[in-house]
């Protein structure tokens, strides 16, 4: 049995929460209703805190945690009618109690706070900090919803739970995850006011696309390349989270260490892998395009 069989079980368990009637209705909603897809994403992410240690890898997107592999799975045809397997350790009663009557804004608040707390390893986020973080990262979410989300997480003691991403051994899958992580960050930074810092972040993430267009590396080298690109994305994500209070003035955030990292990444792509030449001020840019 694969993860998709657990997913079918989980989705069937969430029939009333999502809601949907049958496979046909599920597919229709998945294809036509963005809010429905967001809800599926958030529920699967939050289920990790209630015992389902699923293999879906979540990256941070403009609407909160998102998994490209989960998206591929729920777009598969005839999903709900597929064989399913009960998820051994999930506490569905507790989970249902946690998400009861939650709208998408509440699910987005909760999943964002938990993703932030996991990535930044902040076990004891105060309520004030949490509300400030949400206000900066999710300005569209009402403070009352943010406040209730924090209280709910506290009530279920979820801040103290560590959710670690599983090792990804499948290189094709890993490449999709890296591309998705870069895309998620680009979508976020594109909403920022134009500045040199914004252009640096977007330009360095766009570099991935050019590297993937030109690379033909295999096995260990490919794995190493993907790891380096992924880790670079993680650093950008951490800068974004760390500077949550300065996002309106992002042009003044010091990104020197990220610039140094990107420079090393370019050197690795150029000198170690020979995929693209290293750029300098005298380079002819046409070689990259």
């Amino acid at each position: 049995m694969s993860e998709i069989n657990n997913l079918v079980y989980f989705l069937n368990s969430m029939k009333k929460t999502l809601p949907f009637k049958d496979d046909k209705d599920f597919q229709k909603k998945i294809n036509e209703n963005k809010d429905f897809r967001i809800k599926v994403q958030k529920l699967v992410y939050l289920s990790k805190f209630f015992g389902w240690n699923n293999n879906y890898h979540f990256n941070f997107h403009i609407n909160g945690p998102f998994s490209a592999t989960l998206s591929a799975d729920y777009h598969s045809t005839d999903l709900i009618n597929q064989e399913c397997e009960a998820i051994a350790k999930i506490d569905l009663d507790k989970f249902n109690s946690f998400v009861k009557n939650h709208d998408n804004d509440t699910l987005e608040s909760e999943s964002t706070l938990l993703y932030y707390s996991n990535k930044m390893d902040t076990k004891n986020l105060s309520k004030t900090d949490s509300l400030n973080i949400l206000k900066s990262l999710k300005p569209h979410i009402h403070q009352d919803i943010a406040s209730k989300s924090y209280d709910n997480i506290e009530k279920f003691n979820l801040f103290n739970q560590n959710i670690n991403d599983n090792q990804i051994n499948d290189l094709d899958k890993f490449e999709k995850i890296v591309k998705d992580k870069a895309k998620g960050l680009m979508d976020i930074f594109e909403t920022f006011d134009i500045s040199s810092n914004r252009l640096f972040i977007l330009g360095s993430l766009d570099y991935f696309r050019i590297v993937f267009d030109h690379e033909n590396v295999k096995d260990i080298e490919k794995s190493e390349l993907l790891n380096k690109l992924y880790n670079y994305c993680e650093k950008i994500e951490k800068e974004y989270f760390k500077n949550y209070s300065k996002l309106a003035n992002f042009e003044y955030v010091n990104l020197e260490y990220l610039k140094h990292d990107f420079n090393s990444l370019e050197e690795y792509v150029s000198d170690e892998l020979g995929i693209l030449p290293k750029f300098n001020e005298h380079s002819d840019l046409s070689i990259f395009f």
Partner: protein
Amino acid sequence: MKRLKIYENIALDSNIIIYYCFKTKETQIVEFTDKTHKLIEFLINQKVTFRVPKFIINEINRISFAEKIEGMIFKKELTNMPKDSGYFFKMKLESKVKYKFNLLQQKEWFVVEDYFPSKESIDEIHDFFEKLIVHPQIDEFLNKKRKGSQIPSFEDMALISYSNDKHYPIITNDYDLSFFKEDLYGKKLSCKIFKLSELDLYNN
């Protein structure tokens, strides 16, 4: 252009400096980069020194080349653009333009000066623009500059003041400085102002 030969010192507005810096192997600003380079080379040969108050340099840094690049690409003002003008291209173009900007500031014919306009001179210039509201050409001016107010930025007013105090003519391509240039000069609020697009490289 020969009209400018008589000056030993000339002040440059930020847009002229930006046009100059945008000459790279890959691209340049349609119309203005080439003209600016020819003009500056001609004047360097005439032993002209370009004088730029520090606040103009700060303004260029503040506006950021990133913003300029986004605007120019959007308005299709750059030549020879690659099909793929994504963020990586923009980032590297910015890096090249910044490099040129830093090199420019090291040239001996390009002098950056500290200058602080007096409150009186800024008030006088502000007053001049405020009174333009009844000028017969005010609508044409506002249409051309595409902004609601006839009052220029502080940097523009400070550059006018700088030009007047130091007796340096200004080369600009900005309507805020050039549209009423004769009136400003006539009222002794500035030295001569030359609009780049009106300068003929070969005949005058």
